[in-house]
């Protein structure tokens, strides 16, 4: 937990020698608490104080990063229990698992589809983050073959799952210069696994039955010099998992309980469990199969839950030209809330019909929210028409407003006397039909 200025002051020499550039140790302590200066600026701090300050500065949930070929998937460093208190920072990496009892071709086929998966949500390209390779056969050669089959198709970070250190080593040996996560560390194999992790600079994921067992393991492993850890807990039900996740997060944040101060790893096998992993604190999510119709909503959920509550995702206000509009093509008015903009832009783009999309500055709010808040009214739309010089771009002055704000049409006609104001459909899905039938 971060220390206050006063707490830091107590750890300083309290001589007010000014060498740090501040008139008093207290002034320096305040700056330090605000993270505006470095501790090293004071030449006289004792070693003991240094250690205490470093300990307290360490984040309550350790940040770990899996790396490969320029990809980096981070987990940890979270600071709140509820997203409204600040925000959730590191989106849980979503990994898809393959097992080493499959043939090379099967693995390559599975990895190939997953690797190339890409889906666009409000202008953001979403992909999966990596793969987990599990040793089922318990044979080193088979595991190594599986890892190289995956590597032949993808360069993304890996999670290696198994319980035998020598099998894991056979796989990790092939991952030069990467930081994978080794998963499956338990009471019996921890020493061997810690050794492999240290040698190959990998992160280690413990697989424990209970929180107590997990805490015991992390302490032991830390004693061997491996500190990048993740917590996996066996759970027989959604409620068990929720309890474990809630306790891990609470103990780390509220008690600064270091043995559980690590990101977690979850293995959901159905939709409800996956939703729980995203909303309740998983650091890594491993799925046992790839299915586009499941991955897409899951990645969207992750995107939503990890949006900063203070900043709605917005697009730049302006005129967006869709399908190379000509002067006779219609103007469509909407707001600059990302979800709104993309619902409309995608429909129009997909229909192939040209239009001028006028995105007004509605402070990132949806059509009705902005309307209710007075940020999307006739005056603002008219102002945007003028600011972005639409009259110079179009020859036929037609502007379509969203059906949800049909009430604005009269006022807008008054604001834009030489424009034809049309009320469009309520939902963007119906825009292409409307453009074809009504605007043609």
């Amino acid at each position, binding site marked *: 937990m971060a220390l206050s200025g006063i707490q830091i002051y107590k750890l300083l020499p309290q001589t007010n020698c000014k060498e740090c550039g501040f008139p008093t140790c207290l002034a320096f302590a305040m700056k330090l608490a605000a993270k505006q200066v470095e501790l090293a600026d004071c030449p006289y701090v004792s070693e003991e104080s240094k250690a205490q300050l470093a300990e307290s500065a360490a984040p309550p949930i350790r940040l770990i990063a899996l790396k490969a070929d320029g990809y980096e998937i981070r987990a940890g460093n979270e600071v709140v229990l*509820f*997203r*409204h208190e600040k925000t959730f920072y590191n989106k849980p990496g979503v990994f898809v698992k393959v097992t080493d009892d499959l043939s090379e071709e099967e693995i390559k086929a599975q990895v190939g589809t997953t690797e190339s*998966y*890409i*889906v*666009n949500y409000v202008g953001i390209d979403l992909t999966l983050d990596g793969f987990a390779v599990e040793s089922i056969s318990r044979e080193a050669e088979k595991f190594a073959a599986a890892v190289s089959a995956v590597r032949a198709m993808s360069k993304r970070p890996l999670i290696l799952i198994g319980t035998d250190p020598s099998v894991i080593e056979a796989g990790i040996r092939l991952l030069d210069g990467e930081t994978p996560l080794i998963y499956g560390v338990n009471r019996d194999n921890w020493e061997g696994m810690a050794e492999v992790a240290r040698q190959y600079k990998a992160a280690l994921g413990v697989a424990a039955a*209970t929180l*107590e067992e997990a*805490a*015991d393991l992390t*302490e032991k492993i830390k004693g061997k010099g491996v500190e990048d850890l993740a917590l996996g*807990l066996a*759970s027989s*039900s*959604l*409620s*068990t998992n*929720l*309890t*474990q996740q*809630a*306790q891990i997060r*609470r*103990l780390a944040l*509220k*008690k600064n*309980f270091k*043995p*559980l101060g690590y990101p977690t790893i979850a293995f959901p096998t*159905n*939709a*409800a*469990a*996956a*939703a*729980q992993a*995203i*909303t*309740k604190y998983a650091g890594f999510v491993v799925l046992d199969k790839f*299915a*586009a*119709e*499941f*991955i*897409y*909503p*899951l990645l*969207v*959920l992750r995107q*939503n*839950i990890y*949006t900063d*509550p203070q900043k709605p995702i917005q697009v730049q206000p302006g005129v967006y030209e869709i399908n190379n509009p000509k002067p006779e093509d219609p103007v469509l008015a909407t707001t600059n809330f990302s*979800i709104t903009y993309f619902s409309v832009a995608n429909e129009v783009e997909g229909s192939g019909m040209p239009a001028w999309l006028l995105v007004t500055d509605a402070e990132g709010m*949806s059509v009705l929210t902005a309307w*209710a808040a007075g940020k999307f009214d006739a005056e603002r739309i008219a102002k945007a028409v003028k600011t972005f010089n639409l009259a110079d771009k179009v020859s036929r002055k037609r502007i379509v407003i969203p059906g949800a704000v049909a009430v604005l049409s009269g006022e807008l006609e008054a604001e834009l006397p030489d424009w034809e104001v049309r009320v469009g459909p309520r*939902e*963007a*899905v119906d825009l292409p039909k409307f453009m074809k039938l009504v605007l043609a």
Partner: protein
Amino acid sequence: MPIELFTDKWPGNVRTVTIGATAAQGGTRTSTVTVGGQKTLPFMHFEQETPYKPVVALEIKDHRPDDWSPLLLQEWGEVMDDPARWAKAAEEAGADLIELMLNPTDLEGKATTPDASVKAVKAVLGAVGLPLMVFGPGQAELDNALLVPIAEATKGERLVLGICEDKNYRTIVATAMANEHLVSARTPMDVNLAKQLNILITDMGLPLERILMDPTTGALGYGIEYGYSVMERLRLAALQGDAMTQLPMIVTPGFEAWKTKEAKVGEGVPPAWGDWLSRGINWEVLTAASLLESGADILVLRHPESVRQVKAAIDELMRVPEKF
């Protein structure tokens, strides 16, 4: 290493609300639904017992809707032409209660009449023994015109009537009071607005035990994060002892999820969206399952497969962990 759990001790709790009345209680229901009563955040069984589990309602209409996803039309088939049969099918699909949402117009496009909607409500009550919620089409005047006769014709049934909003709640609350029903109070994703509406409703004399709170749901991809966080904030406020937030929460993931393009449209969409039917169901289930985590007490769904999955999730969430 023994671990001392971090437990919260909350001064407040959520009220319990019972929907439906059996013959002995002055109604005709064969079962009732009780929700609320939590003394902890959702499913924190290690702190306090959770007395009642969240429940699942299925949404039906008084006649076949013209704006539902083709997948839902296909799933329910011809029962959609008869609210009584639809209700029966919903009961068989595992719903704990039914939400009858009235259409604004009849099949000829004329405004729905009070007579027709009373008939539909009676038919549903006759077909199933489950508790019932009846919601108007969402237009103030029409809602009032329909809900008052419905409330009178079903006196004593403890229906949930809705939707009360800040612009239109008086008539609905008055008729709920006079006829022994409950109300659902909806506000647009805002803690203070929710409290304010609950104050206005209780000021009229309706006890808190007869109010459900609808904080407004956004679908996955379309604002779920706002509803999710407002629910967490409302539940925290309730546990901290703020009386006007201590109501069970009703959410509508079915309505919101099936309105999205992802659930509604099967053709001309990106291949990366995957199989249409599974995607639609996943959209509804992921929305609902997330809201279970943030404190939903009643989830109103539309697809039977979603009901199955969400109920299975609720059962698991209610299981008190033995070791963790």
